[in-house]
């Protein structure tokens, strides 16, 4: 939602899901934020690589709404070739002719000297910002609290917008989302096997993998089983609490003027006010009433309904989300309703 709203702003470049796909749903965090200098070819492999988790999903017809590039008979990339990380969402989100932009980015990246990833990102984002005639860029990826410490280090001058949603609704949304499903099943398989099964063929501990997780191994991937498998709500609730607890700790270490925390529910209740706050946080020159008026009607209504759960399930979900709510309440005591 936020990326779509920002894309309409005259001065803001909306970089959508860049880190979601370059980290391959969190499986390549170390590579995506490598501190040592990497050359242009290495950088391009990360940006333009068809990463294994995304490619597996694509081959088995498991898409997510965020994946804007739709392979077809006339497209450059297909399920067989895999879709480059940049092409999943980030570039198609910016222009209808994403393939042409991809070629432009390739030329730009080829000319970059070896540098740490953070420097590469800064140059690339600045180039894209200029390319689209914007003033600032805003990167937004689902679940990016996981890499917030890396982001703080990589972008020491950046400001952060933390859009928080009720953990219970968030968990319901996560449980149905194939991207989170991939991340959470891969996370379990990784700890059992001692390696990320999408990055390594080492199967020394395959005997420890429970039967119900076998269809999510890349070599046995079953798209139907993946679609059927509902990620347990308490698992998503615990995950949410973990992300919030760790994320707000990182954000709390930043000066107050570098962090804006907004509630998703406030966005829904009063989009104009929330959009105005957001623009003001970017700077006075980004306050744009016309943008607010145009964007506000596009704020969607939340789909998840926490109250539709049974009592036991609700209790388990409440328990799982409690640490996250407590962390938010400690940081933002003015919001008594966090807890």
């Amino acid at each position, binding site marked *: 939602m936020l990326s779509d709203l920002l894309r309409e702003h005259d001065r803001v470049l909306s970089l959508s899901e860049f880190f979601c796909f370059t980290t391959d749903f969190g499986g390549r965090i170390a590579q995506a934020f490598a501190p040592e200098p990497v050359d242009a070819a290495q950088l391009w492999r990360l940006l333009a690589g068809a990463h294994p988790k995304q490619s597996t999903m694509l081959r088995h017809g498991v898409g997510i709404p965020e994946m804007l590039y739709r392979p077809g008979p006339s497209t450059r990339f297909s399920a067989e070739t895999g879709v480059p990380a940049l092409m999943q969402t980030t570039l198609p989100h910016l222009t209808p002719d994403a393939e042409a932009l991809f070629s432009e980015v390739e030329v730009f990246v080829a000319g970059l000297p070896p540098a740490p990833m953070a420097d590469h990102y800064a140059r690339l984002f600045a180039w894209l910002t200029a390319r689209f005639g914007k003033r600032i860029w805003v990167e937004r990826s689902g679940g990016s609290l*996981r890499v917030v410490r890396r982001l703080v280090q990589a972008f020491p001058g950046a400001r952060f917008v933390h859009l928080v949603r009720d953990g219970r609704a968030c968990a319901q949304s996560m449980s149905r989302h194939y991207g989170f499903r991939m991340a959470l099943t891969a*996370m379990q398989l*990784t700890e059992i096997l001692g390696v990320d099964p999408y990055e390594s063929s080492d199967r020394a501990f395959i005997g420890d993998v429970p*039967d119900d997780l076998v269809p999510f191994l890349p070599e046995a991937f079953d798209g139907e089983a993946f679609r059927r498998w509902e990620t*347990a709500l308490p698992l998503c609730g615990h995950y949410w609490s973990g992300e919030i607890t760790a994320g707000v700790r990182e954000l709390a270490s930043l000066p107050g003027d570098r962090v804006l925390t907004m509630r998703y529910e406030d966005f829904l209740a009063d989009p104009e006010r929330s959009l105005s706050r957001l623009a003001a946080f970017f700077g006075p020159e980004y306050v744009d009433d016309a943008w607010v008026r145009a964007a506000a009607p596009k704020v969607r209504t939340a789909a998840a309904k926490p109250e539709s759960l049974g009592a036991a399930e609700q209790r388990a979900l409440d*328990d799982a989300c409690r640490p996250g709510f407590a962390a938010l309440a400690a940081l933002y005591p003015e919001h008594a309703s966090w807890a």
Partner: protein
Amino acid sequence: MRNRAVTLIDMPPVCLPRSEPAFDFRLGHDLEPTVSTHLVTGATGFVGAAIVLELLSQTSDRVVVLARPGAKTAETRFAEALTHAAEAYASWVDVPAALARCRVVAGDVAMDGCGVTSASIGRVTQVWHSAASLRYEDRYADEIRATNVDGTRRVLELAGELGAESFNYVSTAYVAGRRTGVIREQPVDEGEVNNHYERSKVDAENIVRSAFGPRVRIFRPSIVVGHSKTLEATTFTGFYGFVRQLVQFRGMVNRMQAGLLERQSLRLRIDPEAPINLVPIDVVAREAVTIARSAASDGVYHLTNPSPPPIGMAARAVFDMLELPPPIFVRDAAKLEWLDARFDERLDFYRSYITADRRFDRSRTDAALGGERGDDTAYDASRIQALGRWYLARLERERRNLPVAR
């Protein structure tokens, strides 16, 4: 007072021609008038390799190993397994000299005729069948049956062709299935089992009892752990599987919500007072070989710990070793929270080790051993932690390629 009564198994009639024994079982250990030949299956495995090492240590016999080739030849696999075992157990056996007394025949108990001809092996005196699948998940049901049941049938047929006078079958104390209380050294009936593995071992025992004549010994080790002195092991199921499951679970939870398990005690569905029967690998091998060399009668022998520690103490020791708060013990699954239930699911295979209050009677084993037993089976919390720490260090090396979580 030790119960000296010996329970004799009602064995079926002899079905193989009896030949002159190459080794006189009536003689004491120090008198070996002739050299015997032992055929060993599973010799690259935990118990099998230890038995070979013990045979080479206690006797001057020859050993023929039936080993599966894999990425490496059968000879290489066995040589590596024996060398590894000798190092792990600080054995005084001279490995090159010991290997010179061994002959490796490439074969596979899952293949017709074990994939060998009797001529390629020659005449043997005793067969030790320890090859087994230790898997347990449903998806391995066919493999477990093919190896443990059909494989045993094939090894029995081979033993007959080779004129073996004794058949030593390495089973498990957990053929007891869901029975509790005192478990006697007796054949098992068709009682309830917990998983495919236990079922396969029950069936294999029954096949062994009914198919082979001259002398059948069924050895039932309990949870085999590392060497009593060095603590080292060479394969990692049972106790090590439990430790590994907990390490994996802790890792999963940490990736999901760092520190959660450090703040919140897990509930475990176990009876903390029930014993957990850990027995060192060297004790298992020594007792099995000693019994096989003695005048002991046919039948079942429990190679188990006579004084097993309580599972509650063992579990607390393992949790403490992993820097987790002490677990809370519950008997009812309804008392488990969502997170507890997820770990509980992962313990399905270990359920029979950790929930049932059972004591393994060792009357026949003790009688066969003539009362010779060391004190190397006592496990207190620090010894359990030492076992666990040794494995944990190894496991951490094996898990060094874990990607970062954030």
